[in-house]
């Protein structure tokens, strides 16, 4: 791993949204004090269930929403509050995004070629034959061949996997250094997921790309992510190298997730099934997982736990992280 400055760095990031309730407007914080750093050529997997804030966090990095507090550095520049087409454009030339739904992320009335060539022309300044060659080259890069035929197709003529490849090619057309991949395989057929993950992996090596890989699936996070960050209710529960978290999870929530993943149900983790969705309202106290946690105590309801190291490159936000291992 590089020792130079990280390409993307978030410090104590908070994203806040207003919601209308019967008691008037309140605020929820889907991202609540999250810090991380990712280098190029590295993959950080954000793992969490719905409501964990993983997608909101990913979207904050490309500034689809503006953080309420905290700082985002991209390539050493503070981009937390940049505005306007020019500055956002600079940011988005560095960070691109791949969306979850390959059926919704392509415009149904535009051909594959139209999706890519406008971007290539704008960002690489190519025209005419050079533009066409570069577009074809992009399609070859993401494994869509014969490219000269693919370039003419419309989204409805492609399978889900092919569409996702087009979406990846579109992200690459800008020549980014970093990609936020928001559940890129979860809506695809099982038999083609592996190839999309392998494609992302190959692009990482080929272009020295960094990734934030957003997923709810621990197994794919382990496969693709160098490091992993488990989120719950917008807060980091546990972070560390993927191998270590899977092998020795320190947070009760991580262990609940692990034991619920389809291959590996074990009956020894008791879970409180009466609560499903975490409370996201601003001003909550204690550990957000406390009301579902099998080992929560008074202190968990009162004080918010901070991330503490439980190993080299491994930290967990749990008051009982040390004891938790034995339960």
């Amino acid at each position, binding site marked *: 791993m590089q020792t130079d400055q990280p390409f993307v760095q978030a410090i104590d990031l908070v994203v806040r949204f207003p919601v209308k309730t019967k008691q008037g407007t309140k605020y929820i914080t889907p991202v609540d004090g999250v810090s991380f750093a990712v280098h190029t050529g590295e993959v950080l997997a954000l793992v969490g269930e719905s409501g964990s804030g993983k997608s909101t966090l990913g979207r904050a990095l490309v500034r689809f929403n503006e953080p309420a507090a905290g700082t985002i550095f991209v390539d050493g520049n503070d981009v937390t509050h940049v505005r306007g087409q020019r500055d956002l454009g600079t940011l988005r030339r560095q960070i691109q995004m791949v969306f979850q739904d390959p059926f919704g992320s392509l415009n149904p009335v535009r051909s594959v070629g139209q999706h890519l060539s406008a971007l290539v022309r704008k960002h690489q300044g190519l025209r005419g034959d050079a533009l066409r060659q570069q577009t074809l080259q992009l399609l070859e890069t993401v494994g869509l061949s014969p490219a000269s035929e693919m370039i003419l197709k419309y989204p409805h003529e492609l399978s889900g996997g092919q569409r996702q490849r087009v979406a990846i090619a579109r992200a690459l057309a800008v020549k980014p250094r970093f990609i936020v991949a928001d559940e890129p395989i979860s809506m695809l057929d*099982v*038999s083609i997921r592996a190839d999309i993950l392998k494609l992302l992996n190959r692009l990482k090596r080929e272009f020295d790309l960094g990734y934030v890989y957003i997923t709810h699936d621990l197994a794919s996070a382990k496969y693709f992510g160098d490091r992993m960050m488990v989120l719950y209710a917008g807060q980091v529960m546990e972070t560390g190298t993927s191998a270590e978290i899977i092998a020795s999870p320190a947070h009760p929530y991580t262990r609940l997730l692990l034991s619920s993943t389809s291959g590996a149900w074990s009956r020894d983790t008791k*879970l409180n099934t009466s609560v499903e969705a975490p409370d996201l309202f601003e001003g909550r106290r204690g550990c957000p997982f406390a009301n579902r946690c099998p080992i929560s105590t008074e202190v968990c309801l009162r004080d918010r736990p901070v991330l503490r190291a439980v190993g080299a490159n491994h930290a967990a936000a749990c008051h009982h992280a040390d004891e938790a291992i034995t339960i």
Partner: protein
Amino acid sequence: MTGKPVLDVRNLSVGYMTPRGFATAVDGVSLTIHEGETVGLVGESGCGKSTLAMAIMRLLGPGAYVTGGRIRIADRDIYRMGREELRQFRWTHVSMVFQSAMNVLNPVRTIGEQMVDTFRAHDPRMSKREAMERSAELLRIVRIDPARLGSFPHELSGGMRQRVVIAIAIAFKPKLVIMDEPTTALDVVVQRSILEQVMELQEQFGFSILFISHDITLVNRISNRVGVMYAGRLVEMSDSQLATEEPPLYHPYAMGLHRAIPTLDAGDDEISGIPGSPPVPLSMPPGCAFHPRCPYVRDACASIKPDLTRHGDYQIACHLTTDELRSFAHAD
């Protein structure tokens, strides 16, 4: 498990009339489910698994036709029933849980009203109060506070809604419950707690389950037997790999599915997808529909459609021999 057959599907074919021609979605599928058994059905989008479920419920939409075969549920042919008889038969003998609870629940009426309606639709003599009591009891069975009877569907979490739907599905003690991706839209933790509960309910009430999913690991986890569908055909039917001691045999497609998903087990196992995409109904490859994507393809595969044949404890529709299947399945 050799109780009485609850569901017996013989050579069922279903197709859709589309503007571009007649598309076969289910092609000669035979399937038997015995009393108290859970049979899983795995396949990717467009493989015909949902069409099969809808055909069994006789809920096929306009434009869909059963073109051959026969379906018997509890020894009755539901395609020979009158409208009223069918209405009574559904829910009392066979019921269904869909992927989205919101497709079943009416968003503008409370859970209680909807449950009471369901009860009284099947038993008009039941009083409102009695129906309410039965509804409360059902909610308790699926571990939801009966106070929730006054809630609207949107006031419940996704998991709770699906529990309500499951409660309604088992309300009349049906012999067979069809579950079509019942937990796909839910988080893994919720998924697990719901499925564990379904298994408990099954022990308690003894219904059979046809469990349809794209998740082969999950299906293996909860089923006694597992069928794999590809391009409208059943290509494999076998005991769940978790239930047997001997090393399992797979259809090449199922082998591919197993290799396509990363697992949590230690070791950096290399995953590999199946090249190409699943075929679509109007352009089915001749012979074995999987042959263009199959790494072990033979000459015969492109021309002759293989039928399910017995290989030891497994039924596999493939031209390879038992030994070949065994050696490929355990090559790595």
